[in-house]
């Protein structure tokens, strides 16, 4: 029974990551593409803070590397950013989980902002650097998206009775 539950858990994590990958590459007009939430980063934050015994920095790093390959940016950019974000989450998950959702959003804003800055640093080496305005806007959209993600994932975990 426990093994089965664990399998469902992993299936849900993988499905959520696949959806986030598609959101990451879904074709959008240039004008609105900065409004795309960094769903993969949000999911890594979510799963690492809610199941730190199962998901750690290695998980975050692999997700990041997959994102690099799929988006076609310099390999290692998202991998580095996500593993550092996961590290901070691992250190602080007990605190973060106690905050209200909106309070968590502020944390998420900082996490995603840090993630964007790191990715932008590597991308800048490749000759593609974004303006600070775009980085802040993207982090802000992701932070505003956090409550939606949080509530819907909580709902899913309730339905499947996951811990």
């Amino acid at each position, binding site marked *: 029974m426990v093994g089965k539950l664990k399998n469902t858990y992993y299936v849900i994590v993988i499905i959520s990551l696949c959806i986030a990958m598609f959101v990451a590459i879904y074709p959008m007009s240039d004008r609105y593409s900065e409004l795309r939430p960094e769903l993969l980063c949000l999911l890594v934050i979510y799963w690492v803070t809610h199941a730190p015994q199962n998901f750690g920095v290695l998980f975050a790093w692999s997700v990041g590397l997959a994102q690099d390959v799929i988006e076609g940016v310099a*390999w290692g950019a998202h991998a580095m950013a996500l593993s550092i974000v996961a590290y901070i989450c691992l250190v602080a998950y007990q605190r973060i989980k106690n905050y209200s959702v909106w309070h968590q959003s502020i944390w998420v804003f900082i996490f995603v902002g840090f993630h964007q800055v790191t990715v932008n640093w590597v991308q800048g080496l490749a000759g593609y650097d974004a303006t600070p305005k775009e980085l802040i806007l993207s982090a802000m959209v992701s932070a505003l998206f956090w409550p939606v993600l949080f509530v819907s994932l909580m709902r899913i975990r309730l339905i499947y009775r996951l811990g």
Partner: protein
Amino acid sequence: MTIKPLFSKGPSVGVKTAILTLISIGIASAYLFTDWLAPLKRQAQDIVAPLYWVSNLPSKIDDWSDNRLLSRERLIQENESLRIENLVLKRKLQLNASLAAENVRLRQLLNSAETLEDRVLITEIIGRSPDPMMHQIIVNRGAEHGVYRGQALVDAKGLMGQVVEVGTRSSKVLLLTDSRHALPVQINRNGEQLIAEGQGGRSHELALPYVANTLDIVVGDILVSSGLGQRFPIGYPVAEVIEVVKDPSKRFARVITKPMADINRSRHALLVFDHPPAEGS
């Protein structure tokens, strides 16, 4: 079920993060500054292309429904207008045929190599880079169809870019407007040689650096590829000059041009085979 040890062994989280960060930096430097990862990049292209194809499905369905749900009347109308356009284009082609023949004769008189008609391959754009800073697209033709690195991509109106990564059934194309792209061009009106650089970022324009203030260039001039870089075939339209600012206090004039090709909107494009792929290039 095994019981998880209360105090897990192995490196601490901090050490793990540090190692992974260093590995990431290593991979990123290898990716950016060496070509050690070239074979992996090619395979990644094959793995990634189907994902872009799937993410492109909604717009494909939209296209399909547009085609299927058109009224008969509109279809007839469209057919009519296409027929007229075809007629006009055919007339132009007749003129062109005689001009091309004349050109070949003149070139033979001058003892220079004759230009051959380029072979083309129709291709569909299946994906765009999700990062708005990177002007790259993915097309659905690859090594299987004879695509090679450095091949030119054109659409109905002009040059779009060049192939930078070839997968089995798909390839990645770097667009003219990318900040890492530049190509030699000439003004069609007077043959002045220039270089057109992509601006990158959100602008879909090409800048002409090092244009002397005395150079004969005006708004509306058409730039065509000059073929000097031995990358692009000669004579394809590249861009139209939209702004010329000649400030005597500055060393060079500021010239902004707009690509002729519909870089943002094209769905279909042509890959031009102008010379066989050179081995090892």
